[in-house]
């Protein structure tokens, strides 16, 4: 069952309030998204940990309601 981009963004923001989230629907089918999540709270964390925080925010939906999420995470660089 597809998810709305707004729903994904809201879930991420609820778990990582300082995040800036950008979602793209890659195929326009509500099932394949790319997300860019930039958060100060990611600073100093390894990428695996950053990605895990986003996956945790989505609370088991990846692989279920959400087929695929291409994920890119970072701490702010000042260039955003």
């Amino acid at each position, binding site marked *: 069952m597809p998810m709305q981009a707004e729903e994904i963004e809201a879930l991420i923001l609820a778990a990582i309030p300082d995040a800036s989230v950008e979602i793209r629907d890659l195929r326009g089918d509500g099932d394949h998204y790319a997300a860019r999540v930039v958060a100060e709270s990611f600073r100093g964390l390894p990428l*695996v940990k950053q*990605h*895990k925080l986003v*996956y945790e925010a989505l609370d088991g939906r*990846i692989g279920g309601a959400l087929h695929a999420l291409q*994920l890119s995470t970072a701490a702010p660089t000042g260039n955003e």
Partner: protein
Amino acid sequence: MSDTATRIDKLLRANDVVLFMKGSALFPQCGFSSRAVSILDHLSVAFEAVDVLQDPEIRQGIKEHSDWPTVPQLYVKGEFVGGSDIMLEMFEAGELQKLLEDKEVARAL
């Protein structure tokens, strides 16, 4: 340890580089797995590809092993490195090459 956990443990001990993926290295069944294979091929790394579509127990077990919800998953010398997005980002930054060199992983002939 469950049977599945033991099998995963053996796979990781027996192979320096293991990619848990959907489909085979020659015929990946998912864009993310395909991208992961391309990166390893590009780096000329010898790796063991484990097709989780052929093995539901491994498919579930590896997610628990790494506490990571998606496949593909790359392991180097028994350590979880990441999924395909992390692989691509590390590759583009030259970090994946460095990790493989630091861990003295053999290249494919």
